[in-house]
Structure formats: structure tokens, C-alpha cells
């Protein structure tokens, strides 16, 4: 059987992906592609990355068998890949460490990033401090209101946080603004994209940096259970934590991939961010992929309780995995995610981020229909500290 080898040389996953950017950025992307090509197989680069992931990020992250949660559902065993235990509290840092090391080798003293919930912004600000680089983070002014703690964290780490007032004032607009900055300062600036989105080589590069999640899981599953899981479940906004878990399993056809999107207030209400479930292919932010858009091709505003999933696009590789049938994509509502959030708090003593609470909520749906000998590996991509205000507000509590 042919091994999976996408993207192709021009950055395409079937009809998806590619390099849909203005001419000014073509050269910068060529440079980045060449640099990444050179260092992805460079032993010295890989050794430094491995060292940083171990000693700075705190990897490997453990797999935890959530026994009380599993017995509540009365079916499949639920295992959690604990990305929430990483430094800065989410999987995002796996990628920012990698890109920062690359930026240093490319001689770029300034890094920029976009952020929605603020987790990628914090991870970018963290590595910028760690390696002594200037850092500017673009964040929608709506998100700044929702995630004030993360804004303060970024500032503590020495980054400038620039509020973005255009469009819907959320993640997609922050990405537009970061692109505009990059076009303007292309010589000294490295753009650290936080998800498997954007023009080639970003979707491939971010996937590769996040793949440490799935590579570790493969080893850990064998050690703990003597076999691989029956299904992998991860939330999908842009899709970086999901790809990070899925990718190393891509040729293991008997491992199911399930990506869980934000169903918001319900698909029927139109207030959701379930791009792969109901969107249509188009071009945004440098690649062809599924998008939430109206019939005229204008990008639509999305809704999710979790700012990190509130994005009208999705990584192009997920678009390909959907069309090829290798992965399934489903959605759960805000309410279902909240229920899963509280269950994990009460039964396992773990406060998850609202993003990965979506993955937990879907595990809760399918686990009861499966035998007790089945293994579901859920990517617990981040911790929930950042969501205290959101959850408290829903319960009518103000700090």
C-alpha cells in the first residue's frame, strides 16, 4: 500500500492547500520553505528541538487513563493525552518552539503571531522571551475582552498585543492583520502561524512540529496497553492539535480519526463554527480549504463558547482527510462541551480547556455504544484556567 506523502511539492493536499497569497509574500514563503526543507532533516536542529521539548516544554506529556469518567459512560475506556500539562498549558508551544528555532536560524529578530483564545499568543510570546526576540501579537478586540488574562500574560512576557478592530474583530481578522504586518516587515520578521492553516509550507510545518503528540502516543500506548487505540478524538478549530495526534497514525488504517468541531448553539441556528461539517471549499488566508461563507463568497462570522475554535476556516489537510474519508468530522454544541467540562472537573480532578471539552463531549457520546475493551484516545489539548471567566459568567458568577 502506498504510504501517505502529502502535501505535494507545491503544497497541495489534493485540491486543498497551496499558496494563495499576494505577490509580495511569495519570496518570503519560498525562503521559509527552503529553510524548513534544510532543517527538518538536520540532526543538529532536531536535537535542539528535542532538548527544548524535553527540558523547557516538559515533554513527553503522559497518557492518563480516565477510569472514573470511563465507568460513568459504561463503555469504551477513555484515555487522555495530557497536552494540558505542557509549559504554558496547551499543545501550542510544541509548534512555537519549532518555529522560533527556525526563525533564529533564518536570522529574523522579530516574530509576529495571531491569536484567538490567546493560547498561541502566549506560546509565541513565551518562546520570544526565551530566545530574546521582539514579539508582536495580533488579537481581535472582541477576543481581548473575552480573554483578558491571556492578554496580561503576553504583556508580562514582553510582547506587544495589538488589538484588531477590523471585520468581526476575532481570530480571522487577527490573521489578516498579521499578514499585513508580515508584508510590510518581510525582511526582518518571521510569522509564527499557530495552526495548520495559512499558505504552504505552514500547514505541513506546523503539522510536523505538532506530530510529537502522536509519536509519543504510539510509544506510550504500546507500553501501557500493548496496542494502539481504536479511535483518536480531537477538537478541530484550525486543527493543529488534531493533526498532531492523527498524523503519525495516518497509515494505521484500523485507527479511526474523529475531529470534533464547535457546534455552538446548534447547527440549525447558524451560530456555530462547524466548518468541515457544513462549510464549502474556497480560498482564505493563503490556502484552499473548507470555509464558512455565504453564497457570494464572503466569509461568515462564527460562534463558539471556546474562542480557540471560533474560526471560519480549517487546515487544508483536514479538508483532504474529510474528502478522502480517512477522518470523520462531527460537531458538539456549547452545552454538550460544557457538560463534558464539568464532568472532567468532578470525576477526574482535571479542568480542561473548553476547546478540548468538545472532544471529550463526543467521546461521551460514543463511548457507551462501544465495548469496555475498546480504547478511545482523546487529545486533552489544553488546560481550562483561561476559561474561568467564561464558565463562571455562564453560572452567573462574577469575580
Amino acid at each position, binding site marked *: 500500500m502506498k504510504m501517505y506523502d502529502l502535501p505535494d511539492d507545491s503544497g497541495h493536499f489534493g485540491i486543498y492547500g*497551496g499558496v*494563495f497569497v499576494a*505577490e509580495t509574500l*511569495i*519570496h518570503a514563503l519560498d525562503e521559509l520553505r527552503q529553510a524548513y526543507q534544510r532543517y527538518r532533516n538536520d540532526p543538529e536542529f532536531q536535537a535542539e528541538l528535542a532538548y527544548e521539548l524535553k527540558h523547557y516544554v516538559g515533554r513527553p506529556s503522559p497518557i492518563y487513563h480516565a477510569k472514573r469518567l470511563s465507568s460513568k459512560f459504561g463503555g469504551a475506556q477513555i484515555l487522555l493525552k495530557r497536552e494540558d500539562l505542557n509549559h504554558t498549558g496547551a499543545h501550542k508551544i510544541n509548534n512555537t518552539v519549532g518555529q522560533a528555532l527556525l526563525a533564529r536560524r533564518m536570522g529574523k529578530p522579530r516574530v509576529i503571531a495571531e491569536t484567538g483564545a490567546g493560547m498561541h499568543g502566549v506560546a509565541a510570546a513565551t518562546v520570544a522571551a526565551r530566545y530574546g526576540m521582539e514579539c508582536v501579537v495580533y488579537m481581535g478586540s472582541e477576543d481581548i475582552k473575552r480573554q483578558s488574562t491571556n492578554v496580561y500574560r503576553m504583556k508580562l512576557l514582553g510582547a506587544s498585543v495589538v488589538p484588531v478592530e477590523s471585520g468581526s474583530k476575532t481570530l480571522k481578522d487577527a490573521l489578516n492583520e498579521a499578514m499585513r504586518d508580515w*508584508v*510590510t516587515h518581510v525582511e526582518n520578521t518571521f510569522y509564527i502561524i499557530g495552526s495548520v492553516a495559512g499558505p504552504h509550507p505552514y500547514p505541513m510545518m506546523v503539522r510536523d512540529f505538532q506530530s510529537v503528540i502522536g509519536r509519543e502516543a504510539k510509544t506510550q500506548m504500546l507500553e501501557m496497553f500493548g496496542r494502539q487505540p481504536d479511535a483518536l478524538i480531537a477538537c478541530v478549530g484550525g486543527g493543529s492539535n488534531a493533526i498532531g495526534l492523527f498524523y503519525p497514525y495516518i497509515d494505521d488504517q484500523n485507527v479511526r480519526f474523529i475531529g470534533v468541531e464547535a457546534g455552538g448553539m446548534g447547527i440549525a441556528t447558524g451560530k456555530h463554527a462547524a466548518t468541515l461539517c457544513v462549510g464549502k471549499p474556497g480560498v482564505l488566508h493563503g490556502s484552499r480549504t473548507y470555509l464558512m461563507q455565504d453564497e457570494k463568497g*464572503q466569509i461568515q462570522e462564527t460562534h463558539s463558547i471556546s474562542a480557540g475554535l471560533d474560526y471560519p476556516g480549517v487546515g487544508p489537510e483536514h479538508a483532504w482527510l474529510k474528502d478522502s474519508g480517512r477522518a470523520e468530522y462531527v460537531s458538539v454544541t456549547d452545552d454538550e462541551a460544557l457538560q463534558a467540562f464539568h464532568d472532567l472537573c468532578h470525576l477526574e480532578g482535571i479542568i480542561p480547556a473548553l476547546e478540548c471539552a468538545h472532544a471529550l463531549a463526543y467521546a461521551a457520546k460514543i463511548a457507551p455504544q462501544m465495548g469496555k475493551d475498546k480504547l478511545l484516545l482523546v487529545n486533552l489539548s489544553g488546560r481550562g484556567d483561561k476559561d474561568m471567566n467564561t464558565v463562571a459568567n455562564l453560572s452567573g458568577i462574577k469575580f
Partner: protein
Amino acid sequence: MSRIAATFSHLQQQRKKALIPFITAGDPEPSMTVEIMHALCNSGADIIELGVPFSDPMADGPTIQRSSERALKHGIGLKQIFELVAEFRKSNQNTPVVLMGYANPIEALGYQKFIELAEVSGVDGVLVVDYPPEESVELAKHLERHHIDPIYLLSPTTTEARIGQVANLSRGYVYYVSLKGVTGAKHLDLSDVEKKLLQIRSHTKLPVGVGFGVRDAQTAKAVAKLADAVVVGSRIVEEVENSARQEVLSRVSALVKELRQAIDQR
């Protein structure tokens, strides 16, 4: 000969340079677009770049972003823009119209439908900011078959090797983005532009337009000495934004006349 080629050849005979103003279709409201287009022509425009508004205009500065938002409030889309162009064509068969915008509205309509409607309505050229040649060879060929010029951007960061490839696919004119940045920025460097234009001209005989950062008559005049066409966008859109409705036409006309005079005066 295409309307764009005819325009440039006519100007060359008169030893004049082209003035290409940009406006956003539907800004400040769709009912004013055709009137503004006629006013541009009457004040000295040779070609009109008509912006197709998009919700996420990545390459545009704040001025054109706001104009897109104003236009989109009226729900304008490609089909309505083609109707506006057709209406403009009823009384103007000479001035080329170039649609300038982003990929997704075209993707949503579909290539075939887009090209059919463009041809029927009298569109002469198409410039899609986020369709670099690598991603649009097929579209460019379709456009050409339907007598519409695919126009591509060149930038200060475009390598010499690439200039030839891009120019090869372009028809009508090539558009040199004079600075690293978004539309409406303020730091165009004339000596850089001069150097790059020499490089570009060694690879193509197509006319070269220069835009991004032409903010006043003086810059327009200086750019006209180097290029075949001067593109002015944000400065005109600013005039639309800052005028009361009843003054939009007169103020835009006054500005375009001033630019016309400046580039003709050499």
C-alpha cells in the same frame, strides 16, 4: 486588439501615460458606482480598476478595508457588480474596466460563470490579489480565451527569475506594487521603483503600471516619468469616504483632474 492594449497604444502615440484610478464597487452605495465611474472617465481616467469587496482583504490598508465594509453592508456581490459594469458600458465603450479583488468570491461563483458574466458585461481585465500565477494558470488561460486580460502583480521582493514567468502569463499590463506593505501606505521610494522597472522592462514589453503608495499629484507625476501607468487607489477612496453624498462626484472629479494634470505635465 483588447480594449486595454488599444488604450495603451493610443496613449503611446500621444506620448502620454495612463491614469488608472481604483474605486470599490458599491462604495459608498451601489447606486453611485456607475456615476462615479463616468466621473472618473470625464476627469481623465484611462482605465478603471473596480474593486470587488471582500470580507477579508488581506493586502489592503485601513482605507480600502473600510470601503469594502461600506460596500458589503449593501450586500453587493459579483453578480451585481457585473450588472454595474454592463450599465457603465451602455454609455462608454472605450474605457477599459479591470476587476480587482480576492479569490473567494470568484471561487464561490465558479470560474466558468465568472468568466461568462465578465465577458458579457464588458470587463476587460481581472486582477486577483491572492491568485499568484502558480495557482491560476488555468484561470488565466480561460480568461484569455474569452478576451479578458489576466493581470498580475510584481513586487519589490519578486526575484528576477520570477519576473519573466509572471510577465509571461500577464496580458494588458503588469502591475508593479511599489512598496512592501498594504495599499495606501506612505513610503514609496522612487529610486527603488526606477531600478526595479528597468529589471521588469528587460523581461516584458507589456506596459507597466505602478501603484500602492501614490498619494498625491507630485508622486503621481514622478511615477509617470518612470512607468506607463499610474494607479491611484486609497487616495481616491479616501475622497469618497470623506465627502458628503452630494459632493462625492465633484470631489473625486477634482482630485482625478489634478492627478491628470500632474502626470501630463512633463
